[in-house]
């Protein structure tokens, strides 16, 4: 089998896990109240924390895509778990603005000093081997060497 010719894709997740010195009920409110969501994520349009409900976020457009993130509430378990789909993009775009079909899941767990909040943003389709590219989020100059390694592979 010719490995160089095989183009394979895999899905990857973004996971962030942090403890906040607040009760799960308080954090739940910031996740499921539209006004509060607007104060730390983005202001949602048509949001209601009800399973099946559709809502949107407005983000930066790219190419043929108007920047609308389309969401649907998938799972509501008060003070424990909240999930919605997160879709957008356009097939004509590369990188930012390309087709996006992902799911955002929030999990809350009561701990001694507050609440452990875990975000899993899942379903990013990545060409295998290109995953190093996705680590470039900490400011662009620092990641050049990594990008260079990828660019060399591509050449």
């Amino acid at each position, binding site marked *: 089998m010719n490995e160089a010719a095989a183009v394979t894709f895999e899905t*990857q997740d*973004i996971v*962030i896990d*942090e403890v*906040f010195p*607040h*009760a799960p009920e*308080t*954090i739940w*409110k*910031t996740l499921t109240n539209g006004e*509060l969501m607007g*104060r*730390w*994520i983005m202001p949602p349009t048509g949001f209601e924390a009800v399973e099946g409900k559709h809502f949107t976020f407005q983000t*930066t*457009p*790219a*190419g043929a895509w108007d920047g609308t993130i389309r969401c649907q509430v998938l799972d509501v378990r008060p003070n424990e778990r909240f999930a919605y789909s997160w879709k957008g*993009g356009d097939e*004509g*775009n*590369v*990188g*930012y*603005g*390309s087709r*996006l079909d*992902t799911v955002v899941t929030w999990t809350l767990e009561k701990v001694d000093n507050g609440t452990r*909040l875990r*975000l899993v*943003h899942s379903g*990013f389709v*990545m060409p295998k081997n290109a995953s190093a*590219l*996705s*680590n*470039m*989020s*900490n400011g*662009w*100059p620092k990641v*050049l*060497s990594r*990008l*260079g390694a*990828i*660019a*060399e592979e*591509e*050449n």
Partner: protein
Amino acid sequence: MMIEPAPITAVMRALADPTRRAVFERISNADEITVVELTRGSGVTQGAISQHLKSLKQAGLVAERPEGRNVYYRAEPEGLAPLVDWMSHYGSFWRDRFANLRTLLKEIDP
């Protein structure tokens, strides 16, 4: 702000060459820099540096500003936009949002 989709390969190609990448890194780390300064300590000729600058300019990674007898070069971070994929975008997006949440929670639940 509109982000125009740009061919990823032009940027990739410009950064594929290790010397050119080193040139770009040095420009990135300086506010502005001349060809003479870039050549100093680079181990390559001024002509070679000029060629690399030309490629970087064509890829939209570097901009120039002529002043008197000198030309000053600076990095254009927007040139890297085609390389920013969804995962890197949302990686920093959510990290920022977690920081916002911490601040918001302090306000509403001191």
